[in-house]
């Protein structure tokens, strides 16, 4: 099965440059997202991968403008389909949200409203954004429920979320995100709560629908197995920063950042790692992101740490291959003046 889709530059769905999120906490200013740049083309899947607390979910919430009210976001540029969406009025943003960009959340049970039927919740988004009758909304809901593999879809419309299994609920969430035919879909850990057999089915479905509707997709996950199978491009995040980005082949076959290499050594791979063999581990803990942090964020846990890692700002810089960027002094071959950091959009 070919999962690679031809990329064209003019088909940019999302472009984010230097996104920062700051949250005031009692001990200072927490900076969970620092200078994150992302781009997604039509028909492309970008996976953001990283461990808990690395800022991947907050990045997606910042793009959707759904951050908690205390959090402040800044960025140089945020464009959806070439149009600026940063700092626009809430009213204009909510016109886009659910219509041009939509989100699939991690926990279908907490994201679906238990007090309304499936049909009601599915139709709501479409009626909010488009001038359609109840019957048209209902038809669209049935069409999409069948698309996501729910049999007897018409009968399901009258059911409440608690009457559905976890896999079905997640399918309803996907159908809901697709109601208005968005250009960009952000899926935050869409399969974490599901069984492996169901997970495989949901991912299969997502990538099929993405191809069919030709959407850009941002998939957020910590599961490297999922990432390898579904991603066109990958952004590895650590402690609020993107530390490495490239195509799936580049990241998995030639990981450059010590953190990425460490992550890949941590997972047992059937057929590759010997049974019972010790797995790789990354010693230490994720640093606190309160206040300003100098040097490389991974320096305290890195096995190849050097003196120059501790100071200054380490930029995302091109690694060996085109499109492969890495935030590590060891990967940067040439003198820093030659680095085109302006091109460092993920």
């Amino acid at each position: 099965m070919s999962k690679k889709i031809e990329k064209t530059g003019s088909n940019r769905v999302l472009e984010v440059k230097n996104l920062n999120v700051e949250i005031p906490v009692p001990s200072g200013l927490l900076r969970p997202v620092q200078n994150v740049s992302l781009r997604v083309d039509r028909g492309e899947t970008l996976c953001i991968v990283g461990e808990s607390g690395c800022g991947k979910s907050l990045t997606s919430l910042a793009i959707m403008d759904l951050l908690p009210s205390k959090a402040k976001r800044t960025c140089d540029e945020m464009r959806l389909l070439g149009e600026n969406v940063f700092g626009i009025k809430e009213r204009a943003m909510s016109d886009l949200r659910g219509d041009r960009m939509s989100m699939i959340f991690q926990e279908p049970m907490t994201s679906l409203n238990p007090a309304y039927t499936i049909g009601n919740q599915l139709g709501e988004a479409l009626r909010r954004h488009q001038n359609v009758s109840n019957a048209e909304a209902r038809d669209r809901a049935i069409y999409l429920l069948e698309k996501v593999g729910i049999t007897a879809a018409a009968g399901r419309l009258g059911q409440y979320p608690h009457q559905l299994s976890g896999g079905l609920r997640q399918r309803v969430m996907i159908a809901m995100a697709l109601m208005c035919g968005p250009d960009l879909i952000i899926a935050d850990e869409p399969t974490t709560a599901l069984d492996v057999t169901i997970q495989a089915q949901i991912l299969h479905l997502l990538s099929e629908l993405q191809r069919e509707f030709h959407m850009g997709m941002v998939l957020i996950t910590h599961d490297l197995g999922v990432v390898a199978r579904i991603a066109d491009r990958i952004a590895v995040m650590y402690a609020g920063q993107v530390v490495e980005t490239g195509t799936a082949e580049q990241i998995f076959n030639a990981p450059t950042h010590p953190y990425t290499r460490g992550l890949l050594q941590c997972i047992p791979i059937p057929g590759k790692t010997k049974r019972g063999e010790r797995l790789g581990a990354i010693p230490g803990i994720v640093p606190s992101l309160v206040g300003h942090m100098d040097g490389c964020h991974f320096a305290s846990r890195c096995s190849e740490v050097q003196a120059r890692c501790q100071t200054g700002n380490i930029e995302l810089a091109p690694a060996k291959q085109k499109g492969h960027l890495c935030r590590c002094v060891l990967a940067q071959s040439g003198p820093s003046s030659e680095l085109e950091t302006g091109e460092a959009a993920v």
Partner: protein
Amino acid sequence: MAIARALINRPRIVICDEPTSALDVSVQSQILNLLQDLREELGLTYLVISHNLAVVEHMATRVAVMYLGRIVEEEDADTLFSSPKHPYSKALLESVLTPDPSLGIPDTHLGAAYPNPLDMPTGCRFHPRCIDVMPHCGQIAPQKIAFGDGHVECHLYDENRGKGSLAS
């Protein structure tokens, strides 16, 4: 901490229910390494309950596959991972997403409908989702069929009815 508490009375067997399911991979690998070191050092026996087959293959000496309250297949780990017998075990193994970017997402053809445990399917409990289903699977519950040092519950391996064989 939870591991230390479980070991304080020097047990011989430790039951680990999804010891790493909620953890990040770097922490998961630390816990798995720790569990294996303790197994060597203290001569422990583990009963590990997990849905992560990569972890199972890494840790296990014997594996029992459960579906809807029954153990449908049990044997040593090598045999299960190299030649799974039960269609459910096969589907499970296919669903494992190894980090290999050259492969796509597997299609297990299972259907999403997990049966209602209060109203179990008749006959073989897996038959509504099974790709190798035969007409009598819905009526007669399969019996344990022994092979080597394991067993499987599936009509495919019945001596006179089944299509499959236990050549091993």
